[in-house]
């Protein structure tokens, strides 16, 4: 059965082909196949199999079209902003799918979208967990991921091309605590375990580092690997200015280790290897205590996001068993970890 989104692309096939031809500087482009890609709760990703006639790069190509799904989340960047972020990352030497063309003309698809090159490999976490050969040597992969993250963090404000990010928060950790409390209040969620964790985070903010571009969803599942190693870092929709250690904490947090708690770097390698790759580019030593703080914050953030996802289906925005279960199953597990990391012994005296 054809989905509504597939149908929307099918009825606009000619307009899309015309856009691709003009953008590629080609005489014509034939769209042979359109395949939905996974990983699009908030965005839709489509693989386009095209034949390019004339122009500088004639022949068959595989491209990826990325646009908004029917139900987005408020904190997600627009496709226009995401395209700019992808270009900035590529300029900084980060492995990303090459950003090709942006389309803001709603006459083509009815909404903004952009086209990027198709990266090789897979991003599926359960495949990474089940296939030890995938991604090449895992310690090398962990170090490579550390290097890539450090390259992302080499992008610092002010940047005219990233002006839409606004001014960096003076205290990113305290801003996050306030934001998560607001989210919980707006959801009508009453979770004392999360409140306990947020208060602990409010009381124990470590010394901050200078604001840099933070990816905010740098974790296993959001990068692609082939049999050799890392091929691309994906999903730039939550980027902002912030504390670099928040990304390191997110990547290493227990909730993103996919059943391999002993592999502290995203469930795929050692923390030592990940840190060594990162420090090689940054030129400074990572403060492990500060990262531990951001790992608590990571669990809080994921719990709030899970509740928001649950609410998306409860409020009737999007009927989805997956979203309903996300809001129901994840928070108690995250609460347990938060409570364990913030036991009374870990509270500093005033």
């Amino acid at each position: 059965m054809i989905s509504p989104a597939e149908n929307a692309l099918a009825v606009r096939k000619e307009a899309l082909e015309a856009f691709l031809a003009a953008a590629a500087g080609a005489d014509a482009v034939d769209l042979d196949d359109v395949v939905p890609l996974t990983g699009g709760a908030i965005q839709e990703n489509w693989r386009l199999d095209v034949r390019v006639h004339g122009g500088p790069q004639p022949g068959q190509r595989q491209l990826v079209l990325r646009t908004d799904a029917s139900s987005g989340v408020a904190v997600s960047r627009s496709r226009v902003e995401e395209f700019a972020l992808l270009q900035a990352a590529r300029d900084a030497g980060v492995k990303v799918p090459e950003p090709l063309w942006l389309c803001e003309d709603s006459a083509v698809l009815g909404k903004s979208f952009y086209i990027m090159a198709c990266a090789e490999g897979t991003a599926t976490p359960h495949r990474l967990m089940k296939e030890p050969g995938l991604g090449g040597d895992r310690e090398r992969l962990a170090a490579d991921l550390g290097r890539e993250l450090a390259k992302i963090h080499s992008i610092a404000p002010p940047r005219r091309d990233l002006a839409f990010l606004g001014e960096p928060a003076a205290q990113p950790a305290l801003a996050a605590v306030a934001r998560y409390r607001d989210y919980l209040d707006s959801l009508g969620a009453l979770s004392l375990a999360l409140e306990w964790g947020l208060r602990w985070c409010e009381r124990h903010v470590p010394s901050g580092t200078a604001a840099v571009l933070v990816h905010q969803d740098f974790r296993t599942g959001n990068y692609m690997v082939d049999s050799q190693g890392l091929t691309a870092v994906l999903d730039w929709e939550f980027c902002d200015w912030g504390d670099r250690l928040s990304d390191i904490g997110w990547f290493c947090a227990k909730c993103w280790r996919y059943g391999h708690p002993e592999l502290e770097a995203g469930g795929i390698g050692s923390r030592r290897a990940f840190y060594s790759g990162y420090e090689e580019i940054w030129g400074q030593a990572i403060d492990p205590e500060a990262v531990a703080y951001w790992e608590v914050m990571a669990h809080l953030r994921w719990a709030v996001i899970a509740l928001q996802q649950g609410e998306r289906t409860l409020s009737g925005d999007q009927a989805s068993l997956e979203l309903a279960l996300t809001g129901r199953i994840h928070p108690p597990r995250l609460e347990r970890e938060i409570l364990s990391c913030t036991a009374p012994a870990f509270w500093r005296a005033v």
Partner: protein
Amino acid sequence: MNGGEADGAHLLSLARREIEEQVLPLLSGDARYRARLVLNALTLAEAELRHDGRPDGEAGRRLSELSTFEAKAEGSEPKGIERQIQSEIRQGLRDGDAALHDALLAITKGRLKALG
């Protein structure tokens, strides 16, 4: 004897077993993942039906664990007590409170147990 009519929780339990043993082995890929989601939902719904209205249900457990904090709370409904404690936590009146931490851990363990 049970009168011959299965209740909702029993039906959910049987439906879950049917999917787990008869349907799941025939599936792969995305269809298998989707069937697992259905299994998870049935497990949760069954546990909730079994505990509905009983003192060891979710709301009853929360009230029981937090009952020692009732003196400062408005009313005896779990939400009333929880709102009061939420406000106290935000104001810093419960910083490092070992008794509250124990209660929150017990509530969370109960929530996890209900997940199966």
